[in-house]
């Protein structure tokens, strides 16, 4: 059975950052266009229903990361409730609550050390060589600058926690 947690703070916070979410009338337009839902991923209409009432359960927290941010839902939404942004805000609230998914932590670590969010694998190097492209490594000064920015803003702290 699904456990639903009512979180009043979440509802109030969401109302302050995304007031338009309250305009959702559950027409299901977002669900119809969502490419992730078609493959059993996130269900934007359900997210909207739960977000507005401040009930966010554990199952939803997992599926929150299956949104690709294509923003089809926001484009389709007839009431301008902007489900794509609501999902982004919910992700932020999950992360700031300390539940950082492993892949995100790895990505942040990678950004700090290489300046890129995606790994340069052996396949990358092989493909780039075949296509006659330069190696594509980020210069060390640029990485150092990016790391300094991370340390001065939030990401450095988030990684070292």
């Amino acid at each position, binding site marked *: 059975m699904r456990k639903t947690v009512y979180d009043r703070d979440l509802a109030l916070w969401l109302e302050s950052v995304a007031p338009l979410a309250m305009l959702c009338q559950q027409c299901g337009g977002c669900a119809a266009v969502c490419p992730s839902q078609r493959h059993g991923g996130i269900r934007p209409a359900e997210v909207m229903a739960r977000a507005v009432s401040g009930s966010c359960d554990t199952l939803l927290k997992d599926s929150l990361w299956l949104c690709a941010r294509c923003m089809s839902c926001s484009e389709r939404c007839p009431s301008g409730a902007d489900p794509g942004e609501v999902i982004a805000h919910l992700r932020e609230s999950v992360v700031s609550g300390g539940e950082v998914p492993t892949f995100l932590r790895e990505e942040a670590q990678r950004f700090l050390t290489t300046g*890129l969010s995606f790994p340069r694998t052996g396949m990358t190097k092989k493909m780039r060589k075949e296509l006659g*492209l330069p190696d594509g490594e980020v210069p060390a000064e640029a990485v150092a600058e990016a790391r300094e920015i991370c340390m001065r803003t939030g990401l450095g702290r988030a990684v070292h926690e």
Partner: protein
Amino acid sequence: MSRPLYLFSGCLIPTRLPYLEASSRFVLDNMSVDYADLPGATCCVEPIGLRTMARETWLASSARLLAIAEEDGRDVLTLCNGCYMSLQEARHVLEDDRVRWRINDVLGGVGR
């Protein structure tokens, strides 16, 4: 097309989809577009996952890329829609004077 551009290919395209970069360069060369790689380009801090961890970091590093391009007075051409989203949203957010002041402070600390 005589306006010089900076090509910013991001991080997903150079690492996982390099053929997109190769074909874009091929097209740009054949259209005789005046372009160069954005110097000192890192990842824009992709707006889908990483941004949720630290909004400020995303804003500062996107602003850094914009600052580099602004220094040379060139427009930025992105290949990836994520990079476009990052830079466009950052530009929009930075229209707020208070935010811009705060981000300039961070960028000033790294010598930009």
